[in-house]
């Protein structure tokens, strides 16, 4: 999906004027991804409609919100560190021990954006758990936005993106240069699968998972939708498995039946045993 030329040009000028950032013409997907939450919040049908609304009204609050959304990129490698340390030290060792008989491990990055979260998991597993080499490891990344899913599947990142949270040793070991970009090794990329998926729609065609990463996405939905999504996530988890939410997110007061598990400075949630 692309944003109409007039709206894109308006946004481009606005961003340049307000933040000196140059929005290049191949960044339609970024406009879609960043403005979609604002569209939902305002009851507008699309990112394009948000820009159109701003053009129509000139509303200063909306302008500031839009600039902030476009200039804040929260996607990084090993984001927030603690959950990844906890996965390495506590959660994955436990899941691997538990799943040793079946030799299956299934992980879902449910709002994967451009893929850094799922690739971070793939890299972490490759570095720290080489015994999984002959397991059936399922790494699924999904996002509502088809353009970011396509980018995630390409495994290709700019230098600026590579700088954000990815240790140099991993760049040297797992990436190759592709012109100005860095591409994750085919060996890692081939273990991942990215597809478009609407968390607020019907949850079909998904396997069950040992770990679901549903981080920093619930904040974009209203309470009723959060409940629906969390209940669906609980059904999608293999018994005794884990759910990871964003640092500012909690299921408390939204759904019952999830117990809190503190591990290595991070918080995970697990369906209570019945």
């Amino acid at each position: 999906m692309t944003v109409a030329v007039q709206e894109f040009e308006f946004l481009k000028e606005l961003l340049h004027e307000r933040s000196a950032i140059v929005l290049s013409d191949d960044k339609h997907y970024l406009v879609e991804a960043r403005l979609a939450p604002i569209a939902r919040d305002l009851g507008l049908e699309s990112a394009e409609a948000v820009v159109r609304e701003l053009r129509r009204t000139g509303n200063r609050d909306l302008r500031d919100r839009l600039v902030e959304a476009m200039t804040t990129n929260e996607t990084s490698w090993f984001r927030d560190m603690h959950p990844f340390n906890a996965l390495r030290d506590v959660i994955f060792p436990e899941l691997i021990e538990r799943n040793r008989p079946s030799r299956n491990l299934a992980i879902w990055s449910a709002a994967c954006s451009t893929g850094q979260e799922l690739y971070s998991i793939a890299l972490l597993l490759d570095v720290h758990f080489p015994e999984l080499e002959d397991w059936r490891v399922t790494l699924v990344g999904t996002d509502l936005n088809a353009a970011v899913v396509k980018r995630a599947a390409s495994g290709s990142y700019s230098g600026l993106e590579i700088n954000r949270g990815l240790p140099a040793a991993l760049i040297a070991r797992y990436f190759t240069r592709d012109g100005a970009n860095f591409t994750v090794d085919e060996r890692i990329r081939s273990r991942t699968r990215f597809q478009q998926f609407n968390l607020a729609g019907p949850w079909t065609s998904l396997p069950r998972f040992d770990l679901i990463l549903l981080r920093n996405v619930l904040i974009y939905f209203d309470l009723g939708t959060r409940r629906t999504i969390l209940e669906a996530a609980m059904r999608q988890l293999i018994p005794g498995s884990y759910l990871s939410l964003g640092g500012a997110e909690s299921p408390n007061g939204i759904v019952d039946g999830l117990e809190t598990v503190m591990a290595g400075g991070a918080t995970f949630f697990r369906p209570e045993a019945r």
Partner: protein
Amino acid sequence: MHALIVDDSRSMRAILGRILRDLGMDTEEASDGKMALERLLSGGRPDLALVDWHMPNMTGVELVSEVRRRPELAEMTIVMVTSESGPDEIGAALAAGADEYLIKPFTRDAIAAKLAMVGIDAGPLGATLSGGDSLL
């Protein structure tokens, strides 16, 4: 926290200096590897060095190798900050003894994040590795 910025570009030294001072560090500068090494051998003991790769007289990687040969400088954390960005070059810098590697161009919070990775307190930006920089 005391930091040495080694880069042959005056404007780059100014940018890095401003960012580090904003993070609460004292800074000094050297415009090539040779000058930086002389500074270190004459008793300078920064906690951190940000080092460019391509510089006259002595390159950044040569400087890193020289520093790592000297036990008295072992405590110093070294982050390469360079436009040299091939994975092989990154591997070579790490093998020479660099602790981390930041690719130019960079954003303010990418520096903070790299510093956090090497155990230097760089405030909330570095702590979360997701300080909200602009990546357009």
